[in-house]
């Protein structure tokens, strides 16, 4: 195989350049890159208005985006075979890190999420598992005949549930749900039978009372109750939802204009540059602005699923498809939260909210997607 690859390059040195220009030579997907840059650019514009410090916060965020793009570029260069080979080890390392977090982790607000290892910057292992779990489940399932039979399905569920449980123990229910969802997304794409899907949905529904009684903390329950009735405590827990809805609703069709959002500029809207930045966007750019952003997100997901469908190995398909779906879930969770459809969970708006970890992880994921797409032809022959 290797020999063939070398021969191909030797025979046609301009092959890559002709196919997609310099972007392809860098293993970047132009469509995906364009959509991501549009989203992040729009995000910076909104952030300028949402942040109180003007350009300072925008520069800071631009720097994070730059770092994220470099990470993406790096991940795009790696052969998907490499990911496949490293998957179990990455997963194992993640599990060990999660255990370490529980033992020695640094915490904030009653939860231990951060791990500070000597010689490494502080990081959240749970964040890395957002990629680690789909990698592992994809690696596992791709070795089997698909659709998977019951035993492999159960094993895949265990692979998913183990980190999920470790993250719940931190406790960080929001991230745990997303990590578990990423494993389930891969299972779904692998062809999990509809019967089992229905069964799992039913089981999930039945487990809600169990979660409520034994897993969820008081502050989490409070958030859910607040969502159901924000008027019950308009100045306390319901404040975020009430003010967010007021910001969105008062934006109207066209919005109040860039920098003219009174809800955010007069500090009525909490977390206006992080988790609730969509409310700022909605207030200032109106329904049109929101629709534009959601359309961009949808296109990113559709393009990602197209890349997954076009992938040649089972592993590549499952991994890239899983990453696409999990990205979409982040979007949905944040948008639903900000618009009052879901309880307030601390999930940022992907690529737009201010904050570094999330952007770097997401762009790393897109780097993998691009790697899957751009390394395709070399594998084919």
């Amino acid at each position: 195989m290797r020999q063939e690859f070398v021969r191909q390059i030797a025979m046609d040195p301009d092959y890559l350049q002709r196919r997609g220009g310099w972007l392809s030579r860098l293993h970047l997907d132009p469509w995906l890159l364009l959509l991501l840059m549009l989203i992040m650019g729009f995000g910076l514009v909104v952030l300028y208005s949402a942040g109180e410090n003007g350009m300072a916060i925008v520069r800071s965020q631009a720097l994070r985006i730059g770092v994220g793009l470099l990470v993406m570029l790096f991940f795009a260069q790696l052969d998907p075979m490499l990911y496949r080979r490293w998957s179990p080890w990455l997963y194992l390392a993640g599990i060990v890190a999660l255990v370490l977090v529980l033992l020695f982790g640094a915490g904030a607000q009653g939860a231990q999420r951060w791990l500070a290892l000597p010689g490494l910057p502080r990081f959240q292992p749970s964040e890395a598992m957002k990629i680690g779990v789909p990698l592992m489940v994809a690696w596992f399932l791709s070795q089997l005949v698909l659709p998977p039979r019951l035993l492999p399905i159960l094993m895949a569920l265990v692979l998913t549930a183990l980190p999920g449980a470790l993250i719940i123990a931190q406790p960080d229910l929001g991230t745990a749900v997303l990590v578990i969802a990423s494993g389930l997304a891969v299972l779904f794409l692998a062809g999990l039978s509809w019967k089992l899907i229905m069964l799992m949905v039913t089981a999930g529904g039945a487990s809600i009372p169990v979660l409520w009684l034994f897993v969820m903390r008081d502050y989490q329950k409070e958030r859910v109750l607040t969502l159901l009735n924000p008027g019950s405590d308009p100045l306390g827990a319901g404040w975020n939802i009430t003010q967010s809805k007021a910001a969105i609703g008062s934006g109207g069709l066209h919005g109040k204009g860039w920098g003219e959002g009174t809800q955010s500029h007069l500090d009525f809207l909490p977390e206006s540059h992080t988790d609730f930045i969509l409310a700022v966007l909605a207030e200032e750019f109106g329904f049109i602005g929101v629709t534009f952003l959601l359309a961009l997100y949808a296109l990113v997901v559709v393009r990602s699923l197209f890349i997954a469908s076009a992938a040649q190995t089972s592993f590549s398909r499952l991994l890239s498809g899983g990453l696409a779906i999990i990205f979409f879930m982040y979007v949905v969770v944040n948008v639903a939260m900000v618009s009052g459809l879901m309880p307030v969970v601390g999930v940022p708006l992907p690529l737009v909210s201010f904050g570094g970890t999330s952007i770097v992880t997401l762009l790393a994921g897109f780097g993998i997607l691009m790697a899957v797409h751009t390394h395709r032809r070399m594998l084919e022959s």
Partner: protein
Amino acid sequence: MSWGTLRNTGQERELFQRRSFVAVIAVLIVIGVLIGRFYYLQVIEHETYSTISDRNRLQVQPVPPTRGLIYDRNGVLLAENRPVFSLTVIPEQVSDMDALIGEIRDIVDVRPEDVENFRQRMDERRRPFEPVPLRYHLTEAEMARLAVNRHSLPGVEMEARLVRYYPYGRLTSHVLGYVGRINEQDARRIDQVAYAGTHYIGKTGLERVYEEELHGEVGYQNVETNARGRVMRVLEREDPSPGRDLTLSLDIRLQQVAQEALGDRRGAVVAINPETGGLLAQVSTPGFDTNKFVTGIDHKSYAALRDSPDKPLFNRATRGQYPPGSTIKPMMALAGLASDTVTKSEIVHDPGYYQLPNSSQVFRNWKRQGHGDTTLYDAIVLSSDTYFYKMAYEMGGSRMADYLGRFGFGSVTSLDVRDERSGILPSPEWKRRVHDAPWYPGDSVNMGIGQGYFLSTPLQLAATTSVLANRGERHPPRHLRYIDGNIPAQHLLPDIVRPPVDMGSESDWEYVINAMEDVVHGSEGTARRISPGLNYRMAGKTGTSQVFSLDGEEYDEDEVAERMRDHALFVAFAPADDPEIVVSVLVENGGSGSATAAPVARQVTDAWINGFPDVLTRQALPGSMESDGGTAGGQP
């Protein structure tokens, strides 16, 4: 890769593509739901949320008017508004008040009284989110420290407020009164809309009488506030109209002369310009510093003032009712002549007492051995009780009340003095009505020398004496002279025309006034001790009002406790033929009018007629203040 060879890769790819297709459909549906949600919020419910958003940030705030200033007749500022920086707290924004006060105490000096007053105000009725002052008069250093720490003190604000200041607080306490925080009692009687944003209201004195004019009209502004209630932008503003400035007849220098003349004695001085009724001075001692009341006096200080035996809060000049004593004798003389009860030539023998006809009841003269044969003229100069006993007996209570009532006894005399008491002008009808008892001849006898049931206030004595000075013309006493600098007070306070006192002939009036001049200037006048050095003619009458009756027994003044001694009275006007000033003086427990009250009156008339000592003028009059160290305190 052993399984790989057995796999149908094409089928797997197809399966994946079917699932991807389902995923894309699901994504589009979910995106559709989310867009639908935003359509609902932003388009369908836009109005609702716009209202919520606007209600969040837009507020209508009242803009309080600036309170009108008060000047004395020479333009000396008596009541002004000074910007005072205070530390206020919005209780609604504070979760733990005790902790917050503790933190504030680390930054600025907060006394226990401040905290006590603060808690008191917090409990009072107030508008929601209205800042409650905790500390007034912040220093520059304290303001700087607060500014640095403000972010860590939610609900704490620094507020510049115009606060009433009385440069002559102690001197004007009973004239101007003071403003204070609007309490629940005030809130009930004011128009809440007009007072929205106003924190102070006139409580006593002229501040109360002219509250409506001084207050002005409230303005409004539409403001945009942030989530913490801080005003970010004023969108629209309707300016308030400031209150009107008042110029009084009062001369602060005369006020000071009168107060100093009384010294540390309890008493009152009222000085009137007889031509207009304008009050030149109105003093009640002891006074108190009204500035303490403006921002709220603490319980301890208030209790000290309230419970002091000297009653500094009591306005003796207008509310102190004392038997007028012999000061009414000139008016009695006119009444006697007008009613033909007596004639100028009639001579009454004064053996030192008067015995009611057909009765053994004896009324003593103040001079035990009597004045011998006296005419009406002598009776005034020497203040013979015996003469007036007899006259009063012959006139009877009804007629006396009728004549004396024309001068103003028994009724409120002034136009704009807060809570002036009317005193009591007794009469048979009055006694039957109030005491349900018959009028005895002895009542008439006592009334004839201003004793018995007869009560009057220093202000009323000045007003009635001013009728004498004017030879019958009546100008009710008044404080207000001009509005807004040059508008005559008549626009606000119409001249009330009181019919002149028409009794007796012109020669009768001159006869009585001449006698009053001899009270001061005559060799036997009761007030002759104040005559040395007088360079103008002064007409006066001494009086002594009994506090304690010893039932005809002789008593030694020194043996009677100080509080049991008689009140000393003196009424006067000068110059006698063309009066410029009328003065009444009361010295509580001062003993005899001639010894204690008359000298006070002279100091007042001296100052008015001969001019003020330079030092007073320098202190008080604007334009000459820079030559002085600013001891008068007032900054323009």
